[in-house]
């Protein structure tokens, strides 16, 4: 009789374990299944996040050797500008050298953030003119024309040149493709 009770005790323990496993698994399915982002959504978010990063991050908050060097050389003079404003300023100056600074700056700030498999470009749309500031097609990524999916994120861009002059509004476009 005592032996029988012992066996029945095991039934309860095993039953409780099975029960809790069922509840745990069902909760796991509910939590993960409902909010899992699709691949396309992830790509959209990635483009949007990069663009927001460039729009809102100030030069003074960066720890980047290339940007630091430009500041030390007096090429960047106002550290309170955001990355996007500084690129606009280079674009506004419209010299070969300033275009190089803009390209290298975006390259330096994004290359470690963008996964290798993604193509990435940064352009300024000013009226009817679109100017490519940076495009990473020289790397081992697919050309944008051959891409399976291209995601673009656009932001209004502008910068105060001096008290009486303002560049913009223009459009900054970031494209990510795979």
């Amino acid at each position, binding site marked *: 009789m005592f032996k029988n009770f012992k066996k029945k005790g095991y*039934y309860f323990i095993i039953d409780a374990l099975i029960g809790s496993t069922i509840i745990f698994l069902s909760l796991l399915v509910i939590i993960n299944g409902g909010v899992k982002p699709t691949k396309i959504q992830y790509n959209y978010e990635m483009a949007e996040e990069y663009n927001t990063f460039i729009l809102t991050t100030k030069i003074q908050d960066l720890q980047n050797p290339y940007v630091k060097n430009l500041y030390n050389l007096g090429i960047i003079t106002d550290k309170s500008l955001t990355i996007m404003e500084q690129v606009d300023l280079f674009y506004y100056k419209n010299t070969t050298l300033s275009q190089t600074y803009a390209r290298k700056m975006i390259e330096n700030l994004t290359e470690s953030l963008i996964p290798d498999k993604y193509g990435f470009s940064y352009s300024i749309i000013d009226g009817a003119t679109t100017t490519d500031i940076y495009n990473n097609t020289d790397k081992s990524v697919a050309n944008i024309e051959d891409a399976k999916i291209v995601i673009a994120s656009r932001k209004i861009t502008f910068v105060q040149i001096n008290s009486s002059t303002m560049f913009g509004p223009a459009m900054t476009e970031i494209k990510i493709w795979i």
Partner: protein
Amino acid sequence: MDIKFRKKAILFSLMSILFSILFVTIFSTNFTTTYEDRIPSSNIRVKVMDTYTKNLETYISGSIKTSTYRALDEITKYRYVNGGFFKNFSDFNNTFSNCMVCGHINCSNMLSANCSIGNSKDKYYLISKLEDVKNISLDKMNIKMEYKINSVEITQDTQENPRHDPFSIQVAVNISYNVTDNAGGNYYATWNKEKVISQAVTIIGLLDPTGYLSDSTHDNNRTITQYQGSCAFDESCWNPVTTEQFYNESSFRYYSNGISFLQRYWNDNTPSYYYGLETILHPTDIPGINLTNSYIDNYYWNNDHTCASGKTILTMTLGSDTVHLDTTTAARYNVTNLGTGYCP
């Protein structure tokens, strides 16, 4: 007996299955296939529009700065040709608001005079800037932006300018705007906001209104530059050397009994404790100079520190010029010893 125990032993399993069914039923209603595809994309669109709205406010602030600066510059030149000094603050603020908002003297009549004497093709005014962003938003981002400028006020009031910077003015624009998705309308989200955007605008580089509007010969076109020397905010440190440096710079400095930049538009001589400015005029700035006047700018233009008004005027050499100062001013700048009596 054994069967009875086995039935009880699956009690937990049965309960957990029932709970799981309950959970799945409750939570799966939030993630039905109808919304599954739509929610993520609308979330991204809402994020895009939210960032756009924040960015728009920064753009409006920048536009206010540029428009204000340009409007102040244009109305000084406009008033030189058309009317001289304003009657009072209200008269000035009315013209300023119109020029800053639409580039014309009267925004309700766009056939009214252009504030820009040269009819500048460069559209600096606020409406032009807002129309640009409205069009580009619709064209390139499919975002519809509507706006209404409710009021504009310019001031150097202490509450609005807590830093008491005499070299900047404050402009407050009350603006309403509405941002919606052009494709989805109000389906995704709507930003509807009325906000007062206040912006500090420098006066460095602008024409001094008193000098420009007072001088009928148009020779005085001194622009505002800020004195950077050691006596900028210390009245006790003036001596012949620092005074000469200040004179040679042709700059303006803070002086608690001076006249603020804005007051100069309607020729108000009430001392402005926080925002008063003064400069010493050069004889070359003012051909046909009245030698019996003190050369402190607002004293000179207002003709109220003269020998005729009972002041004693000293003559002295500053830089390479012969300069006339009243005795009180000469004592303030600690240069009385440099001077000899000119009149009476």
